[in-house]
């Protein structure tokens, strides 16, 4: 997507300006939909022009060009009467805090009425500053399809009050969805999600926002070890721990500690903080043998206690806990824990994969092979399917 000359451009810096400029336009009274379109055009223009003619004030440049586009759009709609008004509009207030802008736009893009796919696409464009083409590439859909999805999402936001505080839980869910989508094409969505979570944390003191950032960092740190040179999945117990990114782990732990420090009797750590704590314990072990499973199990106990009916409301947590139970109380106890999920997760590959792992732990290799094969036949991800086929073949051959 990015042409040769623009490589010299600091794209990170350019994209960091997107939410600030857009928020400025919307606060000035521009319609979110048209302002976002205008800014997208200005952004493409910047990618083209800046390498040769870098602006003195990038933010003002983007605002001016986007405003000009808005004026052009209105002129073509023959709504001339507002033109002078807009042309003479005050420049955006420099006093506006960057964090406020980001939060304001995240609440717009993650409006609870939008479908998750629309929330994700809109967030990546309006806050992340990615082009439609890049987002389309990341999700393997045609650019026209992604453009349509974005414009429909924006249309459905028309006329809604965008100036009220939104739902932070939705924002966190959307960012985590971006993270878990992982790498695709030339866009590193996991890295993008971390960047957005950092921006979010400039805007809010909410411990769960920190928990989310910590969780992403602590998981992302293991990324270099998660695939081998052939692109094969390497499970946690077989990863080369020297490849883990210790800087990310340190930062993740720091962010998590600052979140946990805010807890009180009434306000216990939320879902993301607890998951981050579990990830931190894995990251802390110098070898698989040194993993502190009893503490991991204690955190899983907290995690399942966050919902009234965890088997139905958070089956992934119950399944993760079953693995921990298997390591602390024995594989058979872990297998028993998975049984309550049969109805909910029995059709999903992960349930069978966990049971394969626990059967292997108990030394029952034939049962493990069967479970891994069952998991492979249900996987919806090529890399995971291949991994599970190899697991089945490995234990059939005697481990």
């Amino acid at each position, binding site marked *: 997507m990015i042409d040769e000359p623009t490589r010299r451009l600091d794209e990170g810096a350019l994209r960091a300006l997107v939410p600030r400029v857009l928020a400025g336009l919307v606060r000035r009274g521009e319609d979110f939909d048209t302002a976002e379109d205008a800014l997208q055009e200005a952004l493409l223009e910047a990618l083209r022009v800046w390498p040769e003619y870098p602006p003195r004030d990038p933010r003002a440049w983007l605002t001016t060009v986007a405003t000009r586009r808005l004026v052009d759009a209105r002129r073509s709609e023959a709504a001339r009467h507002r033109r002078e008004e807009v042309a003479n509009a005050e420049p955006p207030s420099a006093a506006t805090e960057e964090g406020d802008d980001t939060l304001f736009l995240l609440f717009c893009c993650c409006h609870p009425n939008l479908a998750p796919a629309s929330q994700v696409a809109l967030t990546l464009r309006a806050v992340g500053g990615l082009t439609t083409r890049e987002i389309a590439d990341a999700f393997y859909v045609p650019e026209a399809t992604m453009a349509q999805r974005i414009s429909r999402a924006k249309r459905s936001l028309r006329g809604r009050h965008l100036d009220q505080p939104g739902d932070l839980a939705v924002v966190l869910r959307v960012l985590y969805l971006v993270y878990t989508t992982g790498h695709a094409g030339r866009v590193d969505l996991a890295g993008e999600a971390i960047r957005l979570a950092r921006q979010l944390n400039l805007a809010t003191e909410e411990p769960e926002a920190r928990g989310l950032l910590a969780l992403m960092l602590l*998981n992302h740190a293991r990324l270099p070890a*998660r695939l081998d040179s052939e692109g094969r999945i390497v499970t946690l117990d077989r990863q080369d721990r020297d490849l883990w990114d210790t800087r990310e782990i340190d930062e993740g732990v720091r962010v998590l500690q600052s979140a946990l420090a805010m807890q009180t009797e009434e306000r216990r750590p939320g879902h993301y903080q607890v998951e981050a704590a579990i990830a931190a314990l894995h990251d802390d072990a110098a070898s698989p043998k040194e993993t502190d499973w009893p503490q991991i199990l204690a955190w899983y106990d907290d995690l399942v206690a966050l919902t009234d009916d965890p088997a139905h409301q958070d089956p992934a947590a119950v399944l993760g806990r079953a693995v921990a139970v298997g390591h602390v109380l024995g594989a058979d106890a872990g297998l028993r824990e998975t049984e309550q999920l049969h109805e909910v997760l029995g059709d999903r590959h992960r349930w069978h994969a966990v049971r394969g792992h626990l059967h292997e732990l108990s030394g029952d290799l034939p049962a493990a092979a069967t479970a891994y094969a069952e998991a492979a036949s249900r996987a919806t991800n090529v890399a995971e399917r291949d991994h599970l086929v190899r697991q089945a073949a490995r234990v059939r051959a005697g481990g």
Partner: protein
Amino acid sequence: MPKYLLLKHYRGGPEPHRPVPPIDQWAPEDVEAHMAFQNHISELLEENGEYVDARALAPARTWVRYGGADAAPVTTDGPLPETSDLVAGWWMIDVESHDRAVEIAAYASSEPGPGGEPLCEWIDVREIMWERPQATDAV
């Protein structure tokens, strides 16, 4: 966002809900209505931001296998060429859920047949596997 193929078949699949003669034997206006509906589905998917691809396959089929070193490929038109499954084409969609894929497939199956009545053709809904591993650890 999972992707699905909605596969249409020339033949094969479950017992047809509404047996009809081949399309070349339909009334011309019924043929037109049927074809227009196929385009309508693609346009609808584009409009919804759910479209990925749509393709039609020619019915002629050649089964091919490796014939061995220094030997020509072995070909056949298959066992039971008159009754085996034969894919006619597909829509590839990118949607929120399996439920949504089923909903679209059912709508596609409401395509007009002879006399403008819904054809109720069986559509084969298949999930496409995601290529890249996710950013979290697998078991």
